[in-house]
Every structure is written in structure tokens, then in C-alpha cells.
């Protein structure tokens, strides 16, 4: 590994690197993010390596395991460059054919291509696929071109040129002004202007200052930071180093969840490689600027995503938040000025420096500049990670990119902002994503989790779910959060079990006020949001649960019963065989009947009853019809008349 001692040497190294890389050489790129790993990409990788070897193509064909591509619903994903032929849901058995047909014969394999559900057309090229086409992937897009474990790939796409630009001719103040001009706001959920935060630290007294990457992504359903840190760790390191230079810090920390082992591994490799190249550590690029980075793993506490709790955890203590009356960019880690920003925020910094604040501000709205990465998950056809310019309407994300709701179901709500956020109904889908627009409607953009819910989702249960999550994760220090949520959870759980009573909603509202006004940290202060937003937009559901003991979405176990309609049942024995509690009686030509005492409400019968019969159903708010007498259960089949 050569140590690069100046920006000029960096450019020379980069030119040399690019001259050695033939852009027309065939390269098989395989998405190697965690989601694709779970779908089997490791086995596919082994198969590819084996096949290339077997067919003697080691010299002609490159194989690159890249960061997450984002279309996680369809993994494992292969993109063959330079043609950009995109294959989905690859199994190891497909690989020999891919190598023989596509690599050697240049023939496309139809069955592995993406099919546009609207036109039934097969799409060959990655950039033509609606999922990718309708995004604006200025940050996330680089993932597909780099192997996160190889710094050369990052250098080949222009990596570290922003750092070189900064260290070879910009003052810290100039860097700061550019970031301020770009109006880069925190991508972790708070949306605080990064430039202002940096300036506060820069001006705070003291020689020792820290910069911190918050990679403790804890919102359930959000995994953008994971994929960014796993897939392109250098982009985050570069941004962090630039930020350190701007505020005068020489020591940085990356606090990453231990539940993200691949991210921990890849960022450690990236740090090591950057140090070897002289892009991190002492005298970076010969500029005289020293900066080291240490990685700290989290140990399983959502609250440590809160900035003061994170700093407490970095000090080796239990992550209890501190009051924010004195801001942590002035008194932070070890009482020193500390700039803490989210992974995605740091990853935007090199782009802003390289392209300028004016370039950056062309994306987005007046108050929300740039793009945002969302994890689009739940009841959506195209589950994955999407990046769009701020100001994009929710409707476009859900339908144009997300492909709408699968299974012919109706959209019900989109939940954003994680446990601090809220649910928005269909009428509000034209709202643009951004820091302020969703907040006015009772939700918030948050860190980027976007959970789509359909007609089968009970909104009262969603409020209960988030409260259960938060009571598990609360640090327990202050009364409004620990005790307030304890009681809120009890009341909501009772409501979902049919034990709700008059006055429950009012009590929940009062507990909400106590938490919002008097809780210690943002976790507590925002804990009532899921309840308040679902109450605002779906009040009828609360009232049905409390007054009628009915769950309109047919979801809450205690309030529903499974029933087989004797008029529709054709005694196919499907549900009978699959029922885990053996609660269904019947036989061939004997109409099936569910024993309500044994039924555990697992829903299997409902899932497996063939749709042409649709005999198994859920009912709520009314008593289960008594089983028809045994004698009436025999089905007499009509014989086929000629």
C-alpha cells in the first residue's frame, strides 16, 4: 500500500488506477448488503467465483461484491457491466447459465430480468427500471460501484477528492461556510442545520473537540444507515474528516450498533486502509492535519441513538440522556465541544464540497435541501431503500417507485419517523417529504423509515406496538417517560383486548401532554406521537375498539374470531391439515368447523383456504355463529353431467 503524501500524489495515484482499469471490461457486480446476504448472496458469490474459474475467464471477467443496491425485495441482485444488464433473485444454480449465456454469448436471460407489472415488458438495463429511474441517488448511488472492502474502488469513482480539495486550499471557515450555505440539515431525524451545529463547536472554547458518527440506527424498519455504512464506508469517513477539519477536531468516533456486524467489519477495514494510504491518521495528505477515528460498538439500547445518551455510552456508562439546556456541541463528550451527526449527513459532505453548495441547493425545497434516503418497507410491492430529492410527494414514492400495495389490498397509512413519528392517511399522500411539511400534519420525516400499511393493519395496534417498543427501550430515568408510558401501554393494550372504557382516550391525552412537556429527552417527548397521530387520523378505530369491542381491521387477536362459512366450505382439508392447534374438525366432504376453544388465532386457516372458496373468514364485534349440526355437514357433490 503506497502512502499518499499530497493531494497531487492522490490525483496521480487515481489517474494511474483508472488507466489500469478498462471501463469496457466485463464486470459482474453482486449486491452484498445484509439483506441480500439473508437472501443467499454468499452462496451466489461462491458459485460465481467457481464458475469464472471453471470456464477459464479469470483474465477477462472481473467480479465485484458491492454495497447495497437498494432493491432489497428482489435480491440477490447481479448487474453486469458495462452493459448494465440487471438480473434479480439469483440462485447459485443460475450462475453457470449467466456466465455461459450472458458473459460469453452476450445473450440476455429473459426469466431473470425485471418485468414491468404495468406493461408486462421485460427491462434489461438497471437505469430503465422504474424503481431506480424515479429516484435521485446522489448519495446512495455510489454503492453499486464500490466494493466496500477495497479503497481502490472508492478512489476510482473520485473518492477523497473533496478531502484533497479541502486540505489543499480551503480554510476551516471556508468549509464551514460552504456547508452552511448548502443548508445541510441532519438526516438522523432532528433536522438541525449541520453548519450551525459545526459553527457552535468551532466557536466553543477548548482545544479538544470531537466529531461523532451516529450509526446507532434504532428505528425499527429503518436500515438506510446500515446499508450506507456497509456499502460505502469511505464516503462517511471522508465527510467526517472534512467536518473535523472545519471545527478543529483531531479525534472522531463512530458509534455503530453491534447488531450490524457487517457494518462494524467494513468500517474497520475502511479505517485501516485509509490510514495505510495516509488519508487518515497523522499528517493527512501531507497537510499537517491529524485526525484519528475510533469505532465503538453499541450494546443493544435504542436510547443510545439520542445524542447525549450516545456520548454517555462512549464514556463507558449506561446510556441515560442528559438535559440539553447546554447544547452538546458546546458541552458534549467528556464535557468538550462535540459535533454528532448521522451517517447520511456525513455522507453528504464530500458531495457538497466537490460540487458546491449551489449544486446541492438545486435539489429539494426552500427549507429542505438535498435528497433523503428512505427505507420503504411493509405492505409495499418494491421493498427497499430509495433516495429522492426532498419535496417529492409521498404518493410518488409509494406508487411510482414502490409499485403500490401488493395483493390487491387498499392503502391505509404510511408511518414515518419511527417511534417518534406518526401515521398519515391516504388523503395526505400529496404531501412532499421534507423536514417541516410532514410535521405540520402530525407526523415527521424522521430518520427515513417509511412503513406502508394496508387495510389489514389495525391503527390502535400500531400505537400500542410503538409504545411497547418504547417502554422496552426507555432508559427509565424520568417519570413522564417511564411511568407515563407504562400506563399508556396498559391502557392501549386493554383497548386492543376489548377492555377499553370511556375516559381512556382522555387519560391517554393527558399522559401525552405530561410526556411532551416534561420528559427528559426526545425519546420521551416524542413517545406519544404514534398515539396522537393515529387518534387524529383514525379516531373511528379507537371508538370501535372501546365502544363496540370491534377491530375494524380484523387484526386484534382478542377481538376477532376465525370462522369457516359452511356455505362456502368445500372440505378440501387444507386448513384442517395445516392448523397448528388441530382445532378444525371435518373430513373429505365433511364441512370443516373450527373449535373456538382450541383456536389460537394464528390465522393459518385464513391464509391457506383457496381463494376460489374463500370460506375461512375473520369476524369481529359480533358473536361467532354456532356450528351447523353434524348431519348437515356432508357435502353432496354434483356429478358432472354430459
Amino acid at each position, binding site marked *: 500500500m503506497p502512502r499518499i503524501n499530497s493531494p497531487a500524489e492522490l490525483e496521480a495515484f487515481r489517474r494511474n488506477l483508472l488507466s489500469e482499469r478498462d471501463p469496457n471490461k466485463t464486470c459482474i457486480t453482486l449486491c452484498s448488503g445484509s439483506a441480500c446476504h439473508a437472501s443467499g448472496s454468499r452462496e451466489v458469490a461462491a458459485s460465481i467465483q467457481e464458475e469464472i474459474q471453471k470456464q477459464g475467464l479469470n483474465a477477462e471477467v472481473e467480479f465485484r461484491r458491492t454495497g447495497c443496491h437498494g432493491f432489497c425485495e428482489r435480491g440477490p441482485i447481479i448487474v453486469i457491466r458495462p452493459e448494465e444488464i440487471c438480473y434479480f433473485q439469483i440462485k447459485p444454480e443460475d450462475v453457470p447459465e449467466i456466465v455461459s449465456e450472458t458473459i460469453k454469448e452476450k445473450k440476455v436471460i429473459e426469466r431473470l430480468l425485471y418485468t414491468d407489472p404495468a406493461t408486462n415488458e421485460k427491462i434489461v438495463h438497471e437505469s430503465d427500471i422504474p424503481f431506480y429511474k424515479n429516484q435521485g441517488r446522489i448519495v446512495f448511488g455510489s454503492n453499486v460501484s464500490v466494493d466496500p472492502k477495497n479503497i481502490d474502488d472508492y478512489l476510482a469513482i473520485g473518492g477523497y477528492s473533496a478531502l484533497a480539495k479541502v486540505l489543499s486550499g480551503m480554510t476551516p471557515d471556508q468549509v464551514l461556510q460552504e456547508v452552511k450555505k448548502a443548508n445541510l440539515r441532519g438526516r438522523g431525524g432532528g433536522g438541525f442545520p449541520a453548519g450551525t451545529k459545526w459553527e457552535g463547536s468551532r466557536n466553543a472554547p477548548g482545544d479538544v473537540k470531537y466529531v461523532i458518527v451516529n450509526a446507532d440506527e434504532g428505528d425499527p424498519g429503518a436500515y438506510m444507515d446500515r446499508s450506507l455504512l456497509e456499502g460505502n464506508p469511505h464516503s462517511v469517513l471522508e465527510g467526517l474528516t472534512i467536518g473535523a477539519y472545519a471545527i478543529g477536531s483531531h479525534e472522531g468516533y463512530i458509534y455503530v450498533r453491534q447488531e450490524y456486524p457487517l457494518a462494524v467489519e467494513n468500517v474497520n477495514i475502511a479505517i485501516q486502509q485509509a490510514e495505510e494510504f495516509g488519508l487518515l491518521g497523522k499528517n493527512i495528505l501531507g497537510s499537517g492535519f491529524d485526525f484519528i477515528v475510533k469505532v465503538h460498538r453499541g450494546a443493544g*439500547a435504542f*436510547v443510545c441513538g439520542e445524542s447525549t445518551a450516545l456520548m454517555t455510552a462512549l464514556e463507558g456508562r*449506561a446510556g441515560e440522556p442528559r*438535559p440539553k*439546556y*447546554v447544547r452538546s456541541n458546546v458541552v458534549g463528550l467528556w464535557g468538550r465541544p462535540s459535533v454528532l451527526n448521522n451517517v447520511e449527513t456525513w455522507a453528504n459532505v464530500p458531495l457538497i464540497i466537490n460540487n458546491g453548495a449551489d449544486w446541492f441547493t438545486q435539489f429539494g425545497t426552500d427549507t429542505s435541501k438535498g435528497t433523503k434516503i428512505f427505507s420503504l418497507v411493509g405492505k409495499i410491492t418494491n421493498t427497499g431503500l430509495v433516495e429522492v430529492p426532498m419535496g417529492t410527494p409521498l404518493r410518488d414514492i409509494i406508487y411510482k417507485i414502490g409499485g403500490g400495495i401488493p395483493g390487491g389490498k387498499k392503502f391505509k397509512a404510511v408511518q414515518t419517523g419511527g417511534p417518534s413519528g406518526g401515521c398519515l392517511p391516504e388523503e395526505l399522500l400529496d404531501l412532499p417529504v421534507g423536514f417541516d411539511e410532514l410535521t405540520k400534519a402530525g407526523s415527521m420525516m424522521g430518520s427515513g423509515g417509511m412503513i406502508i400499511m394496508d387495510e389489514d393493519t389495525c391503527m390502535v395496534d400500531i400505537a400500542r406496538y410503538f409504545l411497547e417498543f418504547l*417502554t*422496552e*427501550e*426507555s*432508559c*427509565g*430515568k*424520568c*417519570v*413522564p417517560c*417511564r*411511568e*407515563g*408510558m*407504562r*400506563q399508556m401501554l*396498559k391502557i392501549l393494550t386493554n383497548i386492543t383486548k376489548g377492555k377499553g372504557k370511556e375516559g381512556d382516550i382522555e387519560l391517554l391525552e*393527558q*399522559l401525552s*401532554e*405530561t410526556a411532551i*412537556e*416534561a*420528559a*427528559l429527552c426526545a425519546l420521551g417527548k416524542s413517545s406519544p406521537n404514534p398515539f396522537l397521530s393515529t387518534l387524529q387520523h383514525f379516531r373511528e378505530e379507537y371508538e370501535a375498539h372501546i365502544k363496540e369491542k370491534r377491530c375494524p381491521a380484523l387484526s386484534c387477536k382478542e377481538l376477532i374470531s376465525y370462522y369457516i362459512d359452511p356455505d362456502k366450505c368445500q372440505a378440501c382439508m387444507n386448513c384442517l391439515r395445516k392448523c397448528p392447534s388441530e382445532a378444525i374438525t371435518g373430513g373429505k366432504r365433511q364441512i370443516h368447523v373450527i373449535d373456538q376453544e382450541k383456536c389460537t388465532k394464528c390465522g393459518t386457516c385464513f391464509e391457506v383456504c383457496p381463494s376460489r372458496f374463500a370460506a375461512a373468514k375473520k369476524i369481529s364485534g359480533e358473536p361467532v355463529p354456532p356450528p351447523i349440526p353434524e348431519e348437515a355437514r356432508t357435502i353432496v357433490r354434483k356429478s358432472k353431467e354430459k
Partner: protein
Amino acid sequence: MNEILLKIDGKEVKAKEGMTVLEAARSAGISIPTLCHHEKLEPYGACRLCIVEVESRGWTRIVVSCVYPVEKNIIVRTRSEKVDRIRKMILELQLAHAPDSFILQDLAKEYGADRDRFEKEPSFCIHCGLCVRYCAEVKKKNAVGFVDRGIRKEISFIPEIASKECWNCKECFPLCPTEALQAAYVLMEALISPPPSLKREAEK
């Protein structure tokens, strides 16, 4: 040290820089209720009972006076409809754990808190942290600490330290508003030195 002028409940108060609103109020003879505060200990900010309304630069918000630093020209109100409402709720939440605590009952009378608003909770520790903090900051023995988090948080003695230090100390005992501490101590004692009858059983 700089002098800072602020208004508390309509009264002009002179405070020193670095003081908290609670300290400033107390120095002027204005009372604000607290549960987790103690002069010998670092402010903790857990019970949230000492909340007050602070009006500054046109904005009014609720802050916790035991940790909020004084600022010049702020207007502080130690009682208001909102402050009282939230204090009442905090007391009711605490009373669910320790309905018979004298300290809580006195405060409940003042704020009209109903001890039966919520169903009784099994643990009567209200997590003021006085025992843990006193042992750590004043006695520096660390014989008792917290375990777990959220609704499962509890206090727990370290048997090896407690068996040596606590018998002759017990300075934290009078601090506990609910006697949960005394109960925890007795439980710990019972676990580390089982009664002779149980020992005989085990030896059989």
C-alpha cells in the same frame, strides 16, 4: 462571578452565573417542590416535579428548574395551570407505586392528586435515585446501584460490599421517600445469609 437578574413569580431575584433556577428560587425564599433533589448531591432531574414555566425572548416553555441554568431577564413562574396539571399527573404516577409514602401524600394534598388514579404497581421504589447517588457521591462506597432500564429498572445492593459497609452506615435510609430502600436491604440480607433453619435443610 457575574450577577444575573431574573424574575421569579413576579419577584426580582439576583443570582450568580452558574446557578440553577431552583437554587436561585430557594435563595429568594421561593419554594419549588422536589423529590430527587438533595443539597449534598449533583442535580439529577429525574422526578420532574420541580418543573417551572420560563418565558424568554417571547417563547414560553416548561423546564426542569433543578438543572436549568439561570439566564438574565428570564421570567419564571413556579405555578401555573399547566405546571400544576403536570405535577398532579407526576404525583399520581408515583402514587401508583407508593400510595402510603408520607412525602407523596403531602404533595398530593397540595396538588389534588388522586392516589387511586392508576392501578397499583408491584414495586414501591419511585427511582428518585437518592440512595444510589448518596452512596456513590458522598460515601463513595457504591454499595447500591441501579439495574436494568425502563419499566424494569430497580435498585440492587452489591452483597459483597453491602455486607461489609451498610450495617454501620445506613445513612441513605432516611433519604428514601417510600421505604423501598429498607425493603431492598432486608431482602439482600436474607439472600446472603439464609436463616439457620434453611441452612440445616440444605445441609441434609
